[in-house]
């Protein structure tokens, strides 16, 4: 008993360490990736001075931020001011506790799954951590004792709370289809192909080549999730909380050095979280469109998962490079008057369809 408990503990600690390190490196890479892609979309070169293709630019930036003086405004609430970036980063990292990355692997006779914990309410956990991230932003804005951060924090709380509703509502049809809140179960439910589509008649056979992914069942929910997800991460064109041109950076205006870096890290972690959620819930997770190559074993599903996540990361960057920021009232209008009713409608429609098919 104690032996297996010890082994489990070691495995879990090792997994936590690996996930933490991989995510940190991933964020550094994504920052570089974003700068490079946006630059080329604007006919520029982007970072190219440090390392091959400028890959080490983010590392250099991170080092710079670590050695910069952390300035605290005299009007700031010191304790909260110091705590806020920690809350942001903690919530962003904790969301990954229940996100599975792939199948499983045998290490020394111990079967280790690619996730830290397979919670039966895994989806709920991720959403809850996403909500906690609001605290980091709001507290940072309030405790800075400065008007721009305060405005940014207020905007952000309103925005993130409104879009969280649409985000969560858009996921319920998927949960209904899979019959579980466990992300691993939801991915398993998406394996295989759709099969013959009856109402298409003679061409219904194409269904045998279409993977059984929920995006083909819940496309409206997927689009709502994507829009709400971009808003939830405070990314352009919904970056009203930061809004460099209006709010001088928004809630993190007064932050510098390592504390600023923590907000930065949290923002990019959220991008990865939302991308991973989109992949897990709508794009079949680590299920590829090709049969698994037995030679590659667990690597093949992992590659599929990473490739899909990177597609969404690219989408985030692409949107940022293309679209201007929405006006605040427009943002709220889209959230409350379009996305939430649309999500509710799709929830009812898919519920009725399921009831009809039973």
């Amino acid at each position, binding site marked *: 008993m104690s032996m297996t408990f010890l082994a489990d503990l070691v495995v879990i600690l090792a997994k936590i360490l690996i996930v933490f390190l991989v995510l940190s490196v991933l964020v550094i890479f994504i920052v570089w990736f974003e700068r490079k892609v946006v630059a080329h979309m604007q006919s520029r*070169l982007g970072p190219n001075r440090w390392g091959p293709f400028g890959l080490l630019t983010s590392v250099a930036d991170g080092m710079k931020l670590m050695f910069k003086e952390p300035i605290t405004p005299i009007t700031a609430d010191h304790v909260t001011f110091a705590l806020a970036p920690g809350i942001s980063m903690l919530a962003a990292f904790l969301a990954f506790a229940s996100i599975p990355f792939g199948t499983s692997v045998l290490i020394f006779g111990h079967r280790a799954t690619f996730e830290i914990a397979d919670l039966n309410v895994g989806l709920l956990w991720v959403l809850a951590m996403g909500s906690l991230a609001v605290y980091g932003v709001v507290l940072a804005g309030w405790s800075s004792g400065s008007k721009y951060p305060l405005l940014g924090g207020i905007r952000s709380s309103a925005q993130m709370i409104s879009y969280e509703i649409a985000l969560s509502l858009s996921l319920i049809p998927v949960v209904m289809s899979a019959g579980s809140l466990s992300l691993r179960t939801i991915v398993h439910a998406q394996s295989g192909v759709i099969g013959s589509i009856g109402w298409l008649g003679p061409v219904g056979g194409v269904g045998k080549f279409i993977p059984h992914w929920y995006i083909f069942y819940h496309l409206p929910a997927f689009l709502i999730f994507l829009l709400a997800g971009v808003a939830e991460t405070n990314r352009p064109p919904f970056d009203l909380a930061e809004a460099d041109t209006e709010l001088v950076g928004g809630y993190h205006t007064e932050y510098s050095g390592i504390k600023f870096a923590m907000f930065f890290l949290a923002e990019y972690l959220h991008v990865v979280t939302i991308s991973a959620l989109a992949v897990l819930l709508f794009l079949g997770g680590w299920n590829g469109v090709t049969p698994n190559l037995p030679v590659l074993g667990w690597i093949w599903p992992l590659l599929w998962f990473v490739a899909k996540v990177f597609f969404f990361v690219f989408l985030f960057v692409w949107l940022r490079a293309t679209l201007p920021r929405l006006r605040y009232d427009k943002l709220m209008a889209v959230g409350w008057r379009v996305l939430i009713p649309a999500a509710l409608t799709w929830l009812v429609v898919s519920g009725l369809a399921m009831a009809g098919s039973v």
Partner: protein
Amino acid sequence: MPDERPPEKDLGPLRATVNVAKGLWVTLRHLWRRPITIQYPEQRREPFPRFKGRHVLDRHEDGLEKCIGCELCAGACPADAILVIGAENTPEARYSPGERYAKVYEINYLRCIFCGLCVEACPTEALVMSHAYDLASDSRDSLIFTKDMLIADAPLQRRPSKEDLAAGEDVGDFRILKEGLARARAELGKPQRPAPPGAGGRPPAPEEGRPAGTASLGQSASAEGSPKRTEVLEGAPPARGTQAPGDVPPPDPSAPRPTDENISPR
């Protein structure tokens, strides 16, 4: 106060989606295009022939300075950037052909606006503007250029000489003008003026992909073997890639010239 903005036009969801898709397509297309960035310290842009860069004080063919210390440039300067103090030439110390020369000649590049009025004011064409444009510095003092920094080591070639014209060689602006005229005449159906003797059957239209004036410059230089063509300031730019923009004649190695990197950075 009531909102006086015109009512917003609602695009409707379909049009809005199409517009967003169009925008996304534009950025995606640019992802595969070649960036237009010029990597400045390593790559340089060739300025246009009449680019107004840092000034150079010219010399006569015999080495005497063209500047006669008349201070007309200083008078013309709207930014009050030029300081000239003239002095008398003596038989023992002769600097310029006339009576006077510039004992002190300073241009303050913190003030200069590169308008070129000084060049226009110069009665002896002593003051010209080169193609050197990287005039940044970390000290104010080093941006006040003194006479020994501004003066050319050898006479600059900037206009086609009479011999060139006599040989039928058109350089720079003259050539472009003539070619334009010839093209216009051809389009109007009027007879073209016969090519001047010695032009070597050069086509009347400017060579594609080559900066105007390059070919003629190279030809005439090789034909005459003229050693004086070290710099062409107005009109014909130097051949691309062979000379740095704003190159001046190689500096005298014995004389200390602290701002050479400003003149010929490579």
